[in-house]
């Protein structure tokens, strides 16, 4: 089954032809820069000076801008993707760490760790249009593929809160393991995966029943459990493979999206944090915060094929979709 899946992916990658050049942007938390990577050359082509403590980073849906949350400057900066210069900013509220967008790319939802709110921003108008009071210390965020539900994980209450994006009310909360960090939906909306950094697990949640249907644990040979901290999650579009970044264990777990069994652990760089696929899903890039580099995983072969040095403490990564 697994082999067939991998072969199938390799075949579809072949049919899609050679990977074109995409552009990846990596936020470097300590050096206050964003590294621009060409995915054909696998090299940094430009380093952009941004505000203080850049972490959350994402392309806008129209691909015109890359947004980067600069927490210590209390704002989200907008990088023009044609000139690679900071051209504007968004009113994010205090200490933005992470944000997410709805499927239409109109609204941005920002987690403000300091004042326990999620700020909603109209990107086109560059204006705040509302906020939601959530659990203490909001962290991970995800919007359901139909745009109706916003997930927000709270570091202190250890819950994933389900927020109705129309009424902006919390409609359900699911208790997960300690320090939930990140949330990701399967593209068909059938599952929500939530990682717990201290618990070292991923909870697979049924988003309709608001119930945990499976808890994924991780164990790496020759390692104590403490460094195995689940952080970033990326699921393939078909939902068949999930990749989980395991922080200071320096590994990425490859999880079968159907059986939820861990298939493999890949040694990447030190303190692996967040990840992003190239749009053809041929490669997955990981940010490694202590070794100050980005690892390139060949998704078909499930092997690390390249390493690119970036700035200090790389945190997030986003890749163009064309």
């Amino acid at each position, binding site marked *: 089954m697994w082999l067939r899946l991998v072969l199938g992916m390799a075949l579809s990658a072949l049919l899609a032809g050679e990977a074109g050049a995409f552009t990846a942007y990596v936020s470097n938390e300590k050096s206050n820069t964003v590294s621009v990577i060409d995915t054909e050359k696998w090299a940094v082509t430009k380093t952009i000076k941004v505000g203080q403590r850049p972490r959350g980073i994402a392309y806008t849906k129209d691909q015109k801008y890359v947004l980067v949350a600069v927490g210590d400057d209390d704002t989200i900066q907008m990088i023009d993707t044609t000139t690679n210069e900071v051209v504007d900013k968004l009113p994010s509220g205090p200490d933005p760490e992470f944000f997410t967008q709805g499927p239409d790319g109109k609204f941005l939802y920002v987690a403000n760790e300091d004042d326990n709110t999620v700020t909603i921003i109209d990107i086109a108008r560059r204006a705040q249009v509302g906020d939601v009071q959530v659990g203490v210390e909001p962290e991970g965020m995800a919007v359901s593929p139909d745009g109706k539900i916003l997930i927000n994980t709270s570091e202190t209450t250890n819950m994933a809160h389900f927020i109705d994006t129309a009424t902006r009310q919390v409609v359900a909360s699911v208790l997960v393991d300690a320090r939930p960090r990140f949330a990701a939906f399967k593209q068909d909306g059938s599952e929500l995966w939530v990682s717990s950094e201290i618990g070292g697990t991923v909870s697979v949640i049924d988003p309709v029943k608001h119930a945990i249907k499976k808890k994924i644990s991780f164990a*790496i040979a020759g390692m104590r459990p403490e460094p195995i901290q689940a952080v970033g999650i990326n699921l393939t579009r078909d939902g068949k493979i999930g990749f989980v970044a395991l922080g200071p264990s*320096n590994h990425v777990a490859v999880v079968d999206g159907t059986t939820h069994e861990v298939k493999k652990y890949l040694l990447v760089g030190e303190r692996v944090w967040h990840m992003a696929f190239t749009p053809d899903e041929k490669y997955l890039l990981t940010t490694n915060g202590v070794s100050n580099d980005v690892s390139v995983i060949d998704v078909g072969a499930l092997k690390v094929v390249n390493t690119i040095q970036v700035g200090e403490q790389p945190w997030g990564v986003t890749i163009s979709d064309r």
Partner: protein
Amino acid sequence: MNRLGVLFVSAIFATAMPSAARAADPRYPDWPCVQAKVPELSVGAMWDGPSIADVGNSWQDDPKIKDLVALLAARRTPLDAAKKAIDEFLAAIAPSDKQSAATKLFAGLFDTLNQQRSEIMDGIERVSRNEKELADKIKSDVESLHRLEDKPNQDPSKVNDLASRVEWSTRIFEDRRKTIRYVCEVPTTIEQRLFALARAIRQNLN
């Protein structure tokens, strides 16, 4: 430092010191760094090659490997030169022996750098303990100084002697504190180096 400066410093000691000296992790009360203390490195977090469990100290029996470990572990050897030395060493080894030699080389580096890192962490804790003792000493000197100054018929030479002792101790305290902050980076630097060297060895096995 003038008198006002001494008073200012003594005010800082009287109020801020106890909290500044408090450790973040209750398991390691003498650990002064903001970086979390991780006593031992994990082989599994560095290496996905063949197990080093059976290597033991056998890497020391091969003089070439022993010398290379010493060269690579020394932080004065630039990382690029170290990687080059690894590639050259493994390129010269017969394919059938390459895996075993690479594993021994990694085992030697892991033992050596893990040991080096532990010694540095012990040193940091030792300095931190001395700092706490010095802080207590300064605090009690400052209190004596205040008592002396409050006396109606104070002896100016005694006050000056004590004030200059406080000044000197404070200067030593501050210098050491700055050094600790710098030295706290070293365990991470060693870990980064070991990881980079392990990766360079591993790449020769692909």
